[in-house]
């Protein structure tokens, strides 16, 4: 496979995750970028490719200016909402594998404290949501929780997925967050706490919904043959792919409204890596909602469609389980930086640097992205 193991995640960086930060999204993006670059053992001027991500974001020119980059050879924007970091991994892998440049910075910052970034305010700013903006927003379908809830209701109706199974996801994520020193949520929750949390958009309760938070996260993707003597043991991108659902701009019009782009992407990434779901030691799954974690296990083939509910029960995905998932607490309990924190966490797990949440002998992991109304991506990563 031409792309397999040609790229690696050489550096990761995160700011403190919090609420009410006084910093702008760009400041947070720059701060996390500098950390990731230093983590790679590089200097800012070594960066020769950039994929800036976020509704509020620095441009490629901003990075050239602020870092004094002498020769930026590659830049791209990925227009897929929360799936952008995961889909950017495919772009970055292909570009470094092709020898276009050596070290690509993928970087994100977010300040919800600035009201332009609150969930209801931003949907109509995004062109991929144009059908929702025109036909549904005026009637009160305003934010992801409301737009995605019918998918979950349909899944419950067709497969018997339960509120307690959503709760199992929420509880496992909170357990993992408690093992992470940079997680916003610090109190444990029970299944009863999940069920008693206030309803947002039926069937989504508060604890089914990801956080809104301030912070920045960044990674450096380096050509594998340029990363052998950088700071850390290499973490290879073994398989990477992107996929889009049918009727990508409207869940309302999607034939099978539970289907996601990940179902198309996953077989490609596993084939490229030459591994199967049962080989995976640790999973970082884009958890915009508890339901989304259940669905993505199905779409990746960890279990059959409709069996995701039972799959996440019984401690399987919590600390010490058979498939520890979102070992940092995820978007549900750590912070919401569009899933870049998931790529950071998987890298740390495969380096053996994940601290109290370290999955013993983790060699192979997956990270997913989910964006807008079901765009997705899958990356299989392995340690050197």
């Amino acid at each position, binding site marked *: 496979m031409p792309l397999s193991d040609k790229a690696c995640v050489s550096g990761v960086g995160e700011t403190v995750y919090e609420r009410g930060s006084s910093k702008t999204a760009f400041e947070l993006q720059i701060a996390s970028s500098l950390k990731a670059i230093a983590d790679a053992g590089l200097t800012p001027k070594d960066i020769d490719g950039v994929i800036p991500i976020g509704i509020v974001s620095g441009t490629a020119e901003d990075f050239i200016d602020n870092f004094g980059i002498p020769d930026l050879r590659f830049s791209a924007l990925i227009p897929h909402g929360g799936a952008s970091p995961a889909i950017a991994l495919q772009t970055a892998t292909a570009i470094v594998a092709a020898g276009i440049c050596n070290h690509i910075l993928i970087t994100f910052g977010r300040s919800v404290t600035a009201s332009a970034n609150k969930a209801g305010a931003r949907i109509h700013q995004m062109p991929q949501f144009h059908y929702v*903006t025109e036909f549904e927003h005026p009637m009160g379908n305003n*934010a992801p929780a409301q737009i995605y809830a019918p998918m979950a209701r349909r899944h419950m109706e067709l497969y018997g997925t339960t509120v307690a199974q959503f709760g199992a996801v929420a509880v496992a994520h909170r357990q993992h967050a408690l093992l992470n020193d940079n997680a916003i949520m610090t109190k444990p929750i029970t299944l009863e706490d999940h069920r008693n949390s206030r309803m947002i958009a039926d069937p989504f309760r508060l604890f089914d919904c990801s956080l809104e938070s301030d912070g920045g996260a960044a990674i450096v993707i380096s050509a594998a043959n340029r990363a052998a003597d950088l700071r850390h043991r290499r973490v290879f991108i073994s398989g990477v792919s992107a996929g889009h659902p049918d009727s990508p701009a409207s869940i309302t019009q999607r034939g099978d409204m539970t289907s996601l782009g990940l179902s198309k992407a996953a077989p490609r990434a596993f084939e490229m890596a030459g591994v199967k779901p049962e080989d995976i030691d640790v999973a970082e799954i884009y958890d915009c909602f508890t339901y989304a974690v259940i669905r993505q296990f199905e779409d990746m083939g960890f279990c059959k469609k409709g069996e995701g509910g039972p799959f996440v029960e019984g401690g399987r995905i919590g600390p010490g389980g058979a498939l520890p998932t979102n070992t940092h607490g995820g978007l549900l309990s750590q912070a919401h930086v569009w899933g870049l924190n998931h790529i950071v966490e998987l890298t740390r797990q495969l380096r053996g640097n994940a601290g109290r949440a370290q999955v013993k002998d983790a060699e192979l992991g997956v990270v997913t992205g989910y964006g807008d109304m079901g765009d997705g991506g899958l990356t299989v990563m392995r340690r050197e």
Partner: protein
Amino acid sequence: MTELPTKPTPPDSDLSRPYWEAAAKGELLIQGCASCNTLRHYPRLLCDQCYSDEASWAVASGRGTIHSWTVAHHAFHPAFIAELPYTIVTVDLEEGPRALGRWSGETPTIEQPVQGRFEVSDGTPELIFVPRIVG
């Protein structure tokens, strides 16, 4: 007196103007391909079956069944605070495509028969579905 926030309005669009003009008169129009007659909703530039850019419009009856639903308990836009809780339904129209609208009735059940009609709210036609008695 402070003004109450108004609901967002649909952006103006040449492509879907016929839909909104009909909605203002209480009619639900669904776009179709003038070349191969495939219906599609929401309105598009091309037919994805034969790639024709010639569109026709068909009046839909508003009859359908519930495909899915959600109940909003939290307002993500200030204009909807006063309406909480409100129910949004996704309906399989008998013509084939789906429609999203507001629900007037008890908690819906999947496959429940419904009837849709337009009501104007803050100047915009709003598609409201109600239970339909069959048989």
